[in-house]
């Protein structure tokens, strides 16, 4: 009973993927699309299988991941430092709020030509674009998180004589962490998009550039292009999943995670 239920939890999504792949094959092999519009599933999977064996493939995945990681880390550190400083100072917060909103409204891609002009098709270009793109939403999350701290939490810290940097790391950051986690989850997804776009448009090494190259390679290379597109999607899923597990581990104490655990246990019974 319990075992069947558990296997069903894995089987259902797997079956859905298989169905989607079959539909793809039917639509392309059945002639709904021509080969220069949309390659068949089997051709694409074969191209992906071939690519996985090459060093160029893994180099491109690593390049994209590297930019994703560096951009995210730089933006997060800056957002936490600047966001907290703004959140603690009412005057600074009020002054900076409108500026932040304006910058947040600028799509990061709009500054891509400028960034390419200044930094060229380099890793620095990608990292800058990603960091710029995710910094603004992140810094807003940090400000909200710190400002919404329960006054009792702060009073307790003062009463216990916990001050300075210790208070920041041991009280402020954990109490703001639900906001930080949400911000990071969204930032991680946009960082990957920005990485691929900067490679696609800016020509820096990575998955995006390989998509562009395959496109230029003519109809015969289309399955390769789709193989890289699929790779970008899989990378997105893996990063989201990794984030989910990370959040579950680090935030296990938070009420929302406790509720999820309790509901899961309730559902299994």
């Amino acid at each position, binding site marked *: 009973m319990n075992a069947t239920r558990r296997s069903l939890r894995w089987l259902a999504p797997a079956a859905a993927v298989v169905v989607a792949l079959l539909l793809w094959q039917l639509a392309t092999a059945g002639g709904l699309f021509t080969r220069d519009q949309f390659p068949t599933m089997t051709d694409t999977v074969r191209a992906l299988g071939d690519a996985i064996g090459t060093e160029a493939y893994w180099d491109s995945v690593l390049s994209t991941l590297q930019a994703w990681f560096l951009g995210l880390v730089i933006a997060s550190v800056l957002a936490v430092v600047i966001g907290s400083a703004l959140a603690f100072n009412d005057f600074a917060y009020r002054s900076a709020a409108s500026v932040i909103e304006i910058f947040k409204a600028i799509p990061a891609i709009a500054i891509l030509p400028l960034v390419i002009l200044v930094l060229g098709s380099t890793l620095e270009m990608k990292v800058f674009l990603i960091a710029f793109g995710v910094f603004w939403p992140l810094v807003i999350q940090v400000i909200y998180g710190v400002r919404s701290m329960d006054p*009792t939490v702060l009073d307790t810290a003062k009463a216990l004589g916990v001050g300075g940097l210790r208070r920041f790391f041991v009280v402020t950051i954990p109490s703001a962490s639900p906001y930080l986690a949400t911000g990071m989850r969204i930032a991680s997804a946009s960082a990957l998009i920005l990485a691929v776009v900067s490679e696609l448009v800016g020509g820096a090494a990575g998955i995006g550039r390989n998509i562009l190259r395959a496109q230029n390679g003519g109809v015969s290379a289309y399955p390769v292009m789709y193989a890289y597109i699929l790779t970008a999607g899989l990378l997105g899923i893996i990063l989201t999943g990794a984030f989910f597990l990370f959040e579950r581990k680090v935030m296990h*104490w938070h009420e929302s995670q406790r509720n999820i655990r309790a509901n899961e246990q309730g559902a299994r019974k």
Partner: protein
Amino acid sequence: MTNATVTSASAGPSTGRTLPAGTPVLDVEHLRKIYNEGKPHAKMAIDDVSFSVDKGEFVCIVGPSGAGKTTLLRCISGLAQASSGRLAFEGTPLTSVPDQLGLVFQDYGRSLYHWFTNAKNVGLPLAARGVPKAERARRVSEVLAEVGLPHVEQQYPWELSGGMQQRVAIARALSYHPDLLLMDEPFASVDAQTRFDLEDLILKVRRDLGITVVLVTHDIDEAIYLSDRIVVLSGSPSKVREVVDVPLGQDRDQVATRASDEFLELRRHLLDLVMPHGA
């Protein structure tokens, strides 16, 4: 530098400082607190409150809801600024929360840190005072045992019942051996039986550690049962209506003490003070 720490729970207040004889632990003179002072929506929470607490005393503050009891405690602890009046802790004017002051909030659910285990919660003020790790662990188990909670170190506060959580909060406030323990309606959100247990616990702790306690409550029976003296506040904005001595001795018992004639006599007197018809 070696850390001069008090090693046994039965040792008194941990400071080596010797106060001049007769210096009260806490001295409150003509305290007034106005929220949003100078603004159109200014609100006077405390009008004029004076009292003092001697070393080793157990003083309860009672008053109706909204009288300004929490406000008073926040001023006494240095968390909030008084609008006027004089506040002294061990003879020194109060500017921020003194190191030798312990505070227990009513809302343990929010004042205990959910992201830390009970041991880390209790050890936090020790870490902030630079107590080394091994010493910290020893003191944490010692003080958790003192409040009757051995073996909860590795658990999280939210894995405990409400009464147990409040014990952890009390242990945390005691871990650094403060001279004065301030408590704001600490037993208001637990059931009656747990409440009796916690009352007896705090009397035991006070006996064991020789600590001075100021406790806010709106429960007159609780105030009589615990105190040596009771400061009765009027309704908002509060003034001191009367300071009542409670000569019930050191040994108290939930059944016998509460049934004694002295207890009932005090109860009648206090009810008379706080009931609106008296005004």
